[in-house]
């Protein structure tokens, strides 16, 4: 029964996922971008602070 259903989806062109459906250019990724860079920045700042603490105690 399941096999049959999958077959039907592939026959119907409107339901086939194409590359265009996954095109990210049209998405608004501003929030994602800010969060990714904020997380990266937090890690870099944390690393630098730990290194400065180590150097100050040399």
């Amino acid at each position, binding site marked *: 029964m399941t096999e049959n259903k999958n077959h039907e989806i592939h026959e119907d062109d409107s339901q086939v996922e194409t590359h265009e459906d996954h095109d*990210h*250019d049209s*998405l608004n*990724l*501003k929030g*994602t*971008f800010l969060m*990714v*860079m904020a997380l*990266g920045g937090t890690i*870099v700042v944390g690393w630098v602070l730990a290194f400065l603490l*180590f150097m100050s*105690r*040399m």
Partner: protein
Amino acid sequence: MHKYEKIWLSFGTVSLAVFLLILLVSALHGGHSPAASGIETIHPEHVLDDERFANPGLYESDDPDYDYDLYFVASAFRYDPAEVEIPVGSRVKVSVATTDVIHGFQITGTNVNFMVEPSLVSNYTYTFNHPGEYLVLCNEYCGIGHTDMTSIVKVVE
């Protein structure tokens, strides 16, 4: 690909490259001892038979690289010596051995901070440039008396 995706993927790739480079440099130049070389072993049950650890404390060294050897015995739940004085400005090689379980050895406010594992003599060389009283504490949980496991290092003029 989205412009933002290119930016954060580049950021991630560059971070990874920098991290691997730091790892490579520190592995080759950081004075690290690979597990199979440069380490000293000692039987935990015979630590006190070793003359250095039978009378632990500060001793003048013959090695031109540092001024003093400082020996500590760590055991549940104390350090021997319980207090030690170091002349300010001296370069000291701190060596610690444990007679039982894993302990930590941290001289607070300095970079002297390492694990003390059974059957190994752990050491770190440090220059004590600032006079004061430093707490030594165990930072590896070793049992019920772990919190009371301390010693004092006094850096004096």
